[in-house]
């Protein structure tokens, strides 16, 4: 040998540069090179992850819209509309309003005239046709009573529906259990959505784990050499985690952009109607959902790789 190696003292900056260069080359460069080499083997994992993430993104946006809808319904549920007879005397209406206003369970009272009721109906999907089908205005005027607690709704309803000013056909908007039924339906939808996502997630994680397992197998010589020469554990495992993150990140990017594109297209096509069916879902919300999907992809990819390494790579 040409003498022994003298380990000189180098400035810290140079040492940091050398270590950073080696980490970049051996960890990130190696991972990118291996990912490109195994692209064909990774394709199934990439596709299944993209599918799962796309479904997650769309289901997430749907859940967001449903949550907003539920909030709207909750706000609506605490308002009792007392529908007034067309021939109700203003003095009687004023008397009922005063009595209700004095009730400590009532937060506030508003008044909706027949014209305002018609205008409101015309803004709701499906109702403009109904509103325009007759010459007369079929919508009654109403007192809109905001109760402090939904639990007091039945008691206020009992007072209002027997009043002489109330419409005999449909005195109030009170429907016992309507809000609870809506909540039950939304809970059912959320549960089904979560179960579906969990199932797809399981499939994606399994496929990704198998592709990482195949990559470990195909590079077992390189891994064993690295282990035997004393490479630290993170140096041996790191490239696989980064490969997983690349796969997950790409799948996330595909799914995120598709989610964003589909939502944008739906907003553009549906205009005002879209806001009725998916309240709160805007372009910026779609952007946040796309970013979340990409982040979820990175996590899913690197997490699956870590899980595989723990199971299939000896130290």
């Amino acid at each position: 040998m040409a003498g022994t190696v003298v380990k000189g003292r180098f400035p810290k900056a140079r040492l940091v540069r050398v270590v950073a260069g080696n980490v970049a080359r051996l960890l990130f460069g190696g991972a990118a090179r291996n990912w490109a080499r195994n692209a064909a083997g990774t394709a199934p994992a990439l596709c299944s992850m993209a599918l799962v993430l796309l479904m997650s993104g769309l289901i997430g946006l749907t859940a967001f819209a449903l949550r907003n809808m539920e909030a709207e319904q909750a706000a609506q549920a605490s308002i009792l509309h007392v529908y007034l007879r067309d021939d109700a005397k203003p003095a009687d209406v004023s008397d009922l309003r005063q009595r209700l206003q004095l009730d400590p369970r009532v937060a506030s009272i508003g008044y909706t005239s027949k014209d305002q009721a018609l205008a409101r109906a015309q803004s709701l999907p499906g109702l403009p046709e109904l509103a325009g089908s007759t010459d007369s205005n079929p919508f009654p005027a109403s007192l809109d009573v905001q109760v402090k607690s939904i639990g007091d709704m039945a008691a206020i309803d009992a007072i209002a529906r027997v009043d002489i000013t109330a419409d005999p056909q449909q005195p109030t908007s009170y429907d016992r259990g309507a809000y609870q039924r809506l909540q039950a339906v939304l809970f059912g939808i959320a549960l089904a959505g979560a179960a579906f996502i969990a199932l797809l997630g399981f499939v994606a994680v399994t496929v990704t784990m198998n592709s990482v397992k195949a990559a470990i197998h195909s590079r077992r010589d390189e891994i064993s050499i690295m282990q035997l020469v004393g490479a630290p554990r993170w140096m041996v495992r790191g490239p696989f985690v980064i490969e997983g993150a690349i796969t997950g990140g790409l799948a996330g990017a595909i799914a995120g952009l598709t989610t964003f594109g589909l939502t944008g297209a739906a907003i553009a096509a549906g205009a005002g109607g879209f806001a009725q069916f998916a309240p709160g879902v805007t372009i910026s919300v779609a952007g946040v959902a796309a970013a979340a999907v990409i982040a979820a992809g990175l996590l899913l990819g690197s997490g699956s790789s870590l899980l595989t390494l723990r199971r299939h790579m000896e130290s």
Partner: protein
Amino acid sequence: MRPLAPPRPSRADTRPIVELRSVTHAYGSRKAVDDVEFALHPGELTFLVGPSGAGKTTLLRLINRELRPTRGEVFVNGLEAHTVKPKRVAEVRRQVGVVFQDYKLLPRLTARENVAFGLQVADLRVSDEEARDRALDALEAVGLGDRAHSFPIELSGGQQQRVAIARAVVAQPPVLIADEPTGNLDQDNAWEIMDLFEDIAAWGTAVLVATHNIEIVTRLQRRILTLVNGRLVRDQPAGQTGRMAWLALS
């Protein structure tokens, strides 16, 4: 003519670099290594012999902490290999260079890159230039300075094994273990590889070679550890291993 070898340190004035104390390793109920005890000193070239299945490979894997002993203690350059946590196994392995029968070179890297790769993944502080220079030095030392840019497939078996040896010693570990390093080589190449091991030991490295090559073992007159059914049945000191070894025993 070979260059003058450096003075070989005597066993008496050096502390052991590898020490096994009552080491047992079992695969299920079968004991592959059974209550083995020995020490290796710096500069010592030792042969590990025994029939197939005697436990030679298991013993080497215990030293390199690929396996943890079922019972007993393994010390490598002062590190307790038997208790070291998985996170710190790499520290033990950096003390031990390893040579295999099948070379285990990465086919897509050149000879120099194979040697430098081993150096840099084990120590990130080694720069590209330093790794290149040290890899070339190591390759020159094993007589392959002119084949540094050849890929493994372009090298003969003996040359590939020399590259593997260069990779094993480039980081200057205090211990070198070799598992049947001449198993795939003809006798001429086998002697060249053994010459290299002698040179490496002469510079102070403890070298342990598991082999079936009886001719080499008997002619080199080095220390021999004989394993049979996992038990160390004989530990013959250097110079007492030839055909007349019985004289020392009688």
